[in-house]
Each structure stands twice: as structure tokens, then as C-alpha cells.
């Protein structure tokens, strides 16, 4: 029996860990989870669509009835009548008030949000084109908003409270549409442990 001699200890070799797979590589298109249908964002967009449609319909009704809008906070730069009766309140070349295209915008936006909610209710994935299209629609809306703000601030030097509320709703719709598109595209990868 050896004494003080070499001793050999047998250890169970640590299992080799395979290299993390693809954790540092950029995910490809197939590694992105498809977006959830519905969600709080869709509900918010639907609410904005309904409220915006209501305000636009109110202003349209007043235009054809020839009645001045109630103008909260009138005074100073706030002058609803001046804005709503200006040349910029009608679609160029027509007598159609710009509130009519506004109504159509909110109807489309609300419908796109409703489509997402409907897909969620049915338990199916919403179409992949839905969110990009909604984002594009809100971009169109924002461009129109910037035009109308230019008309109010630079040309008329007056603002309309009702118009501003509609502009804010379009802007918020854009932000939510951007967020929904970003959140929906969640990059993933396989990791083995």
C-alpha cells in the first residue's frame, strides 16, 4: 500500500457547455414572434377614433347648419369662428369642409383598431399588414395636422380649440401606432442551457 505517494483523484469532468447559440447574432425575420392581436393600444386607438369622429361630426354639422361653434377659452389667439370660417376650413377648390375628410380619417383609424380587437376576440393572429398600414395612415394624418397648424399659426394667427383637440388625437394615434409596431416585433433567439 503506497504511503505518501501520488494520489489520483478521479473527478467527474464538468460537462462541456455548448456555445450559446446565436445569442449575439442578429435575429432573422423568422425569429420574430408574430404580434399579439388586440391589446390596450388597440383599445386606445379605437377610443381616439370614436372621439375624433364625434368632434369632426360636430364641426361638420355646425358648418352646414351655419351655427358658430361653442369656443371654450375664446380670446387672445383662440378664435374658433375665425378659423372655422376661413378659406382654409374647406377642401381647396370645393365647398366641402375639411372636417369631412377628418371624419373619414377617424373612421379608417378606428376600423383598423377594431380589426385588431376582433382578431383577438376570435383568438387568431391579426394580419401582419395591419400595424404597418395603421402606422402609415397615422403618418398621413400627422402631415395633414402639420398643414392645418401652419394655416392656423402662420396664416390666420388664430387657433381653434376643437381643431387642436383633433390634432392632438391624431398625434397620439401616431405615437400608439408606432409603439404597437415596435412592441409587436419582438426579436427572439434560441438559447440552450
Amino acid at each position, binding site marked *: 500500500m503506497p504511503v505518501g505517494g501520488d494520489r489520483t483523484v478521479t473527478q467527474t469532468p464538468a460537462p462541456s457547455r455548448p456555445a450559446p447559440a446565436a445569442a449575439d447574432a442578429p435575429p432573422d425575420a423568422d425569429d420574430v414572434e408574430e404580434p399579439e392581436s388586440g391589446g390596450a393600444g388597440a383599445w386606445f386607438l379605437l377610443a381616439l377614433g370614436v372621439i375624433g369622429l364625434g368632434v369632426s361630426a360636430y364641426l361638420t354639422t355646425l358648418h352646414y347648419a351655419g351655427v358658430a361653434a361653442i369656443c371654450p377659452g375664446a380670446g387672445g389667439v383662440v378664435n374658433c*369662428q375665425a378659423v372655422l370660417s376661413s378659406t382654409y376650413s374647406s377642401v381647396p377648390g370645393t365647398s366641402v369642409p375639411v372636417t369631412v375628410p377628418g371624419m373619414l380619417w377617424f373612421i379608417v383609424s378606428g376600423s383598423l383598431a377594431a380589426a385588431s380587437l376582433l382578431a383577438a376576440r376570435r383568438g387568431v393572429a391579426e394580419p401582419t399588414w395591419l400595424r404597418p398600414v395603421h402606422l402609415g395612415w397615422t403618418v398621413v394624418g400627422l402631415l395633414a395636422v402639420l398643414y392645418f397648424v401652419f394655416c392656423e399659426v402662420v396664416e*390666420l394667427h388664430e387657433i381653434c380649440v376643437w381643431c387642436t383637440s383633433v390634432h392632438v388625437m391624431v398625434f397620439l394615434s401616431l405615437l400608439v401606432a408606432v409603439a404597437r409596431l415596435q412592441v409587436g416585433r419582438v426579436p427572439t433567439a434560441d438559447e440552450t442551457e
Partner: protein
Amino acid sequence: MARPSRRRRQELTAGGTPAAGRPAPARTPSSPTPSRYRTQRVKVPRPWWQSPWAWGSAITVVVVAVIVVFIVVANRPAATSSAASNANQPVPASVLAAVTGVSSSVSDTIGAGGVSNPLEPVSGSPSALTGPTGHPELFYLGAEYCPYCAAERWSVVIALSRFGTFSNLAETTSSSSDEYPNTHTFSFYGASYSSSYLDFASLETADRSGNALQTPTTAQQTLINTYDTSPYSSQNGGIPFMDLANSFIVSGTAVPPASLQGMTWEQIAATLTDTQSPVAQAIIGNANWLTAGICKVNGGQPASVCGSTAITSLESQLGSS
């Protein structure tokens, strides 16, 4: 719950094995993957610039910056838009005080001021024209270039100031290339009026250069088509034109713009205390007729205005619609 990607669904369908062409997790040749190893999907942290907050913040910053640029451009002294009259400036306090503070004694002394009744009764008893507050409405149609409108506005401002308050009233002059050029006056474009007795709707169709300003609503155009024509007006769509609650029509002006030639706003305002001034007699006399008409359609309110000697006398001379 989020649905797995198309590739992942294919993998699961194929029994969990990696799809063709996709590298399998690395493993040592001599040690096959123990059963305790699992492959799972993990979310890859996205770069900060791809987060919704980053995008939302960037968009907000851009939009705010654009609006700030608009405000800066709008407030530049040399920046006047094609839609705004270059002569439009806020009415000086002294002028405003003069037109809104014509004393009752001057008004009573002048009375009609030699001005014929400009109020034409509307026949047929149409429904009353009311404004957003439910009060009788005075609808005014004019244009900044129009010298007759320029003369009429002095009386309108005086009359309406007896029932309410103007805000953002601007001063301007009529066209320099029309008859009675550069008649000093006010503009209702951009102005607002508040009153507990009367609603006022004004429409300035063009600035002093003829550039389009405001367009009538459908209802306003109907009023114009109905009443700014024979037998109430000698010219279809002529200006100035006023509809007082669908009870009286005023077409044209009773104040000769020739009498205001060469006078500044301050000079015209200064005459409004002189009962012997032909300018004051025309302007205040015309204003008294308008005041009488307003009193007739709003039930004589307020009594402090409608109960004065001159107004009571003129009101009794108004025909009924």
C-alpha cells in the same frame, strides 16, 4: 399569448429538431447532449434606439420643433401672409375707447343724425336668425377692400359695443385702388364678440388687396342668396350686407365714405364727441338706427340702452317684419 414564429412552429411540428439549414447548438463530439439540456426561446434585448419610447420621444421632439418654427415665423415682424392684410394692426386704446364709449347725451342729441332709416323689414315672417347662444344674431357680410364696408363698420362697432364687447378688433384701410381709397376703418376678420343680448357673425370675404379671407358657410350663403338681392338689395351679393335676426336687412351704408376721406382713425374717433360734426352725425345716427333695430328684435334689452330717448324714438319708426 404571442404566437411563435413561423420557423419555430415548423421546428415544433418536426419534433423539435432544428430546421434544415439552421446550425444545431454546438456540442462536443464525444458527449452527446444530456437529457437535462433544453432549448428555449428567449427574447433578445433590442438596441435602445429601437424601443417604442425612443421612437415616440423622437417623433414628439420633431413635431414640437416644427410647431415652434411655425410660431417663430408667425411672429416675425416682416412675416405677413398673403391671407392677412398688411394694414391690420390692433386698434389703439384711445380709438377703441372713443368708439365704445359714445356718451348717451351725444347719442340722444344726434338722434338719427339726418340718416334715413337703413333697416328694411323682412317680409314673410321667416324664422328668427339666432346665434350659438340662442340670442338674435346680426350677420355681417363685407370685405376689407370695400370702402362702403369701411364706413359702415364704424357704426356697427358703436352699436354693438352698446350690447357687448369686441376682442381682437383690428384697424385697416380700404383698398388703395378702389374709389374712396384708403378709408380708415376696422376689420372684423379675426375679431370676436361676446354679448348677453346679441350674437354677431361677421364674414370678411377678402382683405384690402382682394386676397380671399373667409368663405360663407352653407347657411350663410343661403341667407345671402335669399336676402342680399331684390327687393332688399339693389345688387345681388352686394356688400356691405347685414341681416338682423331675419327681421331687418341692411344693404349698403348710410355713412358716406367720402366724408371719411383723408381722416385717420384717431381723427374720426375724435369727432364722435362733437354733435355738430357731419362725420359724427352720420356715424352715430346710423349706429342709433342699428341700435334701435337690435332693441326691437331682442325685447328691448338692456334697458339702459334701449330706453334712451333717441333709441326709443327711432325704434317706434321701424317697420315690423
